[in-house]
């Protein structure tokens, strides 16, 4: 709304001799006055704001030592300190009569509360009461202004004044929205049964945002045991039902099949969606018939969710139903969902026919390589080889309620294909046709790197070559060096390790030195595994591998040393850190499961601390894991060798050695890339390349979720996700043989 005024209205004066000019002048004066008034206001407010800021700052620095003294006072203090403490107490009583002072003091305490935890926080709560500051907050509750009441509620909640609970819950059905919302959160935070009170008594709608906030408040409670939320599924308040569904999902309470199934028929789409989500999460196969029967009358969004659920636990009998949808449905998204559901139930039913652009659905695409058993290498262009892995990335990144469905699809497909995949991969290994491979990329890189001598020569007589490279490197200018470091990324072998060390020692340019260091760090995690596995095939390399492994281990020792915690035994566990970072129940449970396969004594200590956790599921899992772990650890030595042999046989080494995992995890916490542990070592390759060989730890867990748990695959089979590496390795292998 620009001010278009000043010029164009000028026109209407043109002939208006009748209009009274004095009115206009009066208006002008009025606005002039107003303008001046605003001018003064602006300066006044500006001034007041900065004055206030200065004043609070000075008060803060004045009060800070006093508050610190109060907070850390203890009976063991020296006599002088005791004296000082008492003195301060008397002094502050004087000040407290001033309401302005109380206000500032409360503000400081509120701010401080956000920054401290542990015993200090508890003392802070105590101090707040001892200074009688909560009386002010109670007074605020009686105000007629909603913002004041809300403020009071917040203050009481923040300082955990639990006796205010009764007073505050009266506001749960207040007609002023903001008060209501604050009261709900306060009720939850003040007492563990607060949530039940709200669900029982609220008459108002609860917005989605508010539900999120309330769940957040519940999560922050310590030692909280959630009630069975299914009892609120029969509530008359639509939002309570919805909220109860969300809570059921959040706390994994899978004991309400019948009620939830019934809610699929609810007239509200939101409730339907939430109900289907629960059905999917808890795998309520019983609900399938209901889902199918309501399908026709649903909105598109619900239809997609239903198809997702059927894809998850459907069987052959659902195929005609899905086929019907795939053919009849006009909405592309829905029909394609139906097709992918069919494929996940019975893989290979729907094959690509028409309308397929250069990119295809996961389910369909996977069929192509499987179909051509005789030609396993399938022309390793980027496109084909990356499919399996990239698909995963896609799913992970866009995961939300709808997308869980996608992941589930993949899971089913994978499981069904595993059998085929296994045979195939093995046959690939033996009867591989090297002539088909494309060698251009690697050899050209080599050329540039001055690796014109064939690789076999390198292996026999590596030192001259290393020297050669080093000479080459020294001659390069900055830009070339930079480009060269990039290439090391793609083209890693032990020579580079030495070179990197050389760079780290001698390079003057700090940027490059740092980069080399980073690369080196990446290599460190990569070589130990390779070292073990490669013994079998590559005798000449063995030595250098072992060497580099040693170097790596030496440098890692420092890291371990730094990281071994002295704070608490449970915190020594790698999983302690990870567990703290995990923010939802699922990932925590997955973490615990992971411990079972790779943990050691430290993890047991950590797990024991979990036995006091508020969530029964966690406790259960932790118990089971401890038992399993103890059992496993009793036979550790045997186990380790076993694992090793498995690794050698399979060519897939999941890093199972607990110590090594520790190192790696610690290492990773330091480095920005959270790539860990899922090393794929292949018995054929030397020139192992590219970072994507290392799958991030998170991904590892996700794989776990998807049922592609590599740690369980001790029976020689290749994980199909590994096919990309496999092809790339073959490429390298071929190259070597050609030389």
């Amino acid at each position, binding site marked *: 709304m620009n001010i278009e005024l000043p010029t164009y209205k*000028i026109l209407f004066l043109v002939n208006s001799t009748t209009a009274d000019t004095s009115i206009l002048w009066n208006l002008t004066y009025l606005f002039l006055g107003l303008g001046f008034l605003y001018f003064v206001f602006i300066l006044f407010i500006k001034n007041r704001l900065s004055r206030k800021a200065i004043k609070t700052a000075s008060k803060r620095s004045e009060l800070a030592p006093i508050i610190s003294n109060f907070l850390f006072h203890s009976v063991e203090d020296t006599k002088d300190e005791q004296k000082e403490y008492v003195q301060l107490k008397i002094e502050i009583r004087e000040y407290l009569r001033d309401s302005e002072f109380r206000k500032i003091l409360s503000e400081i305490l509120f701010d401080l509360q956000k920054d401290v935890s542990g015993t200090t926080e508890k003392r802070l709560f105590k101090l707040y009461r001892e200074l009688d500051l909560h009386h002010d907050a109670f007074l605020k509750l009686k105000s007629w202004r909603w913002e004041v009441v809300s403020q009071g509620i917040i203050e009481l909640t923040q300082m955990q004044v639990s006796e205010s609970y009764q007073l505050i819950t009266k506001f749960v059905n207040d007609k002023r929205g903001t008060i209501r919302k604050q009261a709900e959160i306060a009720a939850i935070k003040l007492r563990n049964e607060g949530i039940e009170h709200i669900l029982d008594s609220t008459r108002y709608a609860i917005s989605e945002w508010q539900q999120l906030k309330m769940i957040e408040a519940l999560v922050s409670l310590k030692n909280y045991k959630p009630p069975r939320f299914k009892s609120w599924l029969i509530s008359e308040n639509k939002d309570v039902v919805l909220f109860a569904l969300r809570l059921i999902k959040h706390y994994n309470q899978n004991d309400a099949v019948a009620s939830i199934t019934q809610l699929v028929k609810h007239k509200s789409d939101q409730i339907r969606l939430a109900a289907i989500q629960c059905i999917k999460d808890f795998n309520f196969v019983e609900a399938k018939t209901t889902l199918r029967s309501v399908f026709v009358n649903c909105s598109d969004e619900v239809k997609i969710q239903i198809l997702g659920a059927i894809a998850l636990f459907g069987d052959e009998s659902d195929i005609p139903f899905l086929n019907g949808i795939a053919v009849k449905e006009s909405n592309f998204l829905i029909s394609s969902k139906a097709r992918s559901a069919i494929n996940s139930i019975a893989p290979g039913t729907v094959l690509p026919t028409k309308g397929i*652009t250069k990119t295809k659905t996961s389910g369909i695409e996977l069929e192509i390589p499987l179909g051509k058993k005789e030609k396993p290498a399938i022309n390793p262009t980027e496109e084909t080889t990356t499919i399996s892995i*990239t698909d995963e990335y896609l799913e992970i990144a866009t995961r939300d309620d709808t997308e869980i469905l996608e992941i589930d699809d993949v899971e089913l497909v994978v499981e069904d294909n595993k059998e085929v995949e296994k045979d195939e991969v093995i046959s690939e290994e033996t009867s591989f046709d090297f002539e088909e491979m494309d060698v251009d990329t690697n050899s050209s890189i080599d050329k540039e790197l001055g690796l014109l001598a064939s690789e076999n020569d390198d292996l026999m007589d590596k030192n001259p070559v290393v020297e050669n490279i080093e000479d080459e490197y020294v001659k390069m200018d900055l830009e070339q060096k930079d480009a060269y470091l990039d290439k090391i990324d793609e083209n890693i072998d032990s020579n580079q390790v030495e070179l990197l060390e050389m760079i780290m020692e001698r390079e003057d340019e700090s940027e490059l030195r740092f980069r080399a260091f980073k690369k080196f760090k990446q290599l460190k995690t990569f070589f130990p595994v390779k070292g073990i596995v490669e013994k079998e095939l590559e005798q000449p390399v063995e030595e250098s591998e072992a060497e580099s492994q040693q170097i790596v281990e030496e440098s890692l020792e420092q890291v371990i040393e730094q990281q071994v915690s002295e704070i608490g035994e449970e915190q020594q566990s790698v999983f302690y850190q990870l567990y703290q970072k995990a*923010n939802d129940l699922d990932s925590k449970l997955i973490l615990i499961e992971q411990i079972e396969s790779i943990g050691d004594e430290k993890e047991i200590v950590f797990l024991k601390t979990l036995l006091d956790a508020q969530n029964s599921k966690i406790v259960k899992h932790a118990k089971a894991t401890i038992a399993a772990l103890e059992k496993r650890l009793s036979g550790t030595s045997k186990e380790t060798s076993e694992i090793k042999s498995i690794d050698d046989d399979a060519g897939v080494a999941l890093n199972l050695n607990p110590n090594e995992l520790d190192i790696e995890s610690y290492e990773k916490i330091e480095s920005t890339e959270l790539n860990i542990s899922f090393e794929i070592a292949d018995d054929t390759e030397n020139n192992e390349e590219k970072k994507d060989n290392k799958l991030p730890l998170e991904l590892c867990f996700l794989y776990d979720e998807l049922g592609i748990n590599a740690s369980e695959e001790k029976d020689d089979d290749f994980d199909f996700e590994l096919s990309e590496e496999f092809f790339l390795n073959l490429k390298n292998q071929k190259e070597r043989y050609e030389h």
Partner: protein
Amino acid sequence: MSTSLFDIVLEYIDLIFLLFSSILFCLFVFMGYFSTRSSIHYKNKNSFGDLSKVMASPIAPSITIIAPAYNESLTIVENIRSLLSLKYVNYEVMVVNDGSKDDTLQKMIEAYDLIKVPREIDPNWKSKPIRGVYKSKQLSFSKLTVIDKENGGKSDALNTGIFLSENRYVGCIDVDCLLRPDALLHVVKSFSQRTKKKVIAVGGVIRVANSCTISGGTLEKVKLPKNWLARFQLLEYTRSFLLGRMAWGRIDSLLIISGAFGFFDREIAVAIDGYDTGTVGEDMEMVFRMRRYMHERKEPYTIEYIPDSLCWTEVPEDLNILVNQRDRWARGNLETLYKHKDMLFNSKFGRLGLISYPYWFFYEWLAPLLEFFGFFTIIYFWYLGIINWSFFIALTAAIYVFSITFSFYAILWDVYTYNEYKKTKDILLLMLCAIIEPFVFHPILVYSAVRGNYKKLFRVKSGWGSQVRKGFAKAA
């Protein structure tokens, strides 16, 4: 005879202008009132409640941020980094490379380790063909999706993002604008805190980032622009966003959401087929159609407006670029109003047809034209010697002072609510801007608007359109 006809015409002109200005007068007063109420309410309501905690909740609604990029190779990597570091758990950044002629795509692939991923495309795809969908191999960038497509303009790029996104909300932003870390939390809150009405879109304030200190993709220190043209625009934005849109939001008649920071319910956006690729005023046109759609379905809905300073962008400091930008806005305005002409005074559309549309028609589109016309008439009348000078001066003074007062009021609110410019000197400079603006900055805007309209109405081809940076904000 000819004189009498002339007199009658004059009388009519007189009457129309009197009516026009009186209504405008009242409108501005109301606007001030509504925005004041609205700001106070907002400030009270949001003074408490810690937003940051909700970000971790796994059931938080999902958002896709769509950032179209065209020949941005210099800044794209940094811009994406800043977008990836927002505080929210469930979001995706979708950068749509709109067939850039430079190495924008290559830069992204290198910096973020991208690889092509398979993606099934709807056979009835409406936008320009997609060349590829890319994701990062590194988990730390898993929120990033890059779409490479053939060139089709900003609207087409945004549509591609809207159709490909699978999240509940989509946000359309300019890739070069800077979002405050908690921007998405505010947006999600606005979308999901209503219980009675469906929120179909959320818009926000655009702040001027010229001369501010920006480091590592975050705004470190807010400073007043050094360039005068940017200062005028800053004042204009303050008035428009803090008073104008706040007032329109208050009476739920917001008609425009900036292209630089607009969020939509994806379901509705898809239902109306996204942006119209045939207009240069796509952001305004889309809101018109969304509102129309909801009106026709008779569902209770609203559009939310967030007055917090969440989005910062650079405004043009070059006169030519500014004129071109405003020219384009004027054309977009005209196109949109023409396309939806049946809404004018149509009670079927409620306040939309009775207040918002007429306002846009008369005071956003027509006003600059009248001004232009008036200016030359004055000169002509002066030549004829029929001007009543004392009246002319009195009226000009009244209106001039009124405009300053209004600007001051906007500054006052800015200081009272957000106080972004800490130095008193900056505020004084802004007030100086308000005083000289009507003589310097305003004529530029009028000229641009007239030029835009002339071009559109007489179908003059604007060949240089592609040279200009895509517009980032509609300040009007």
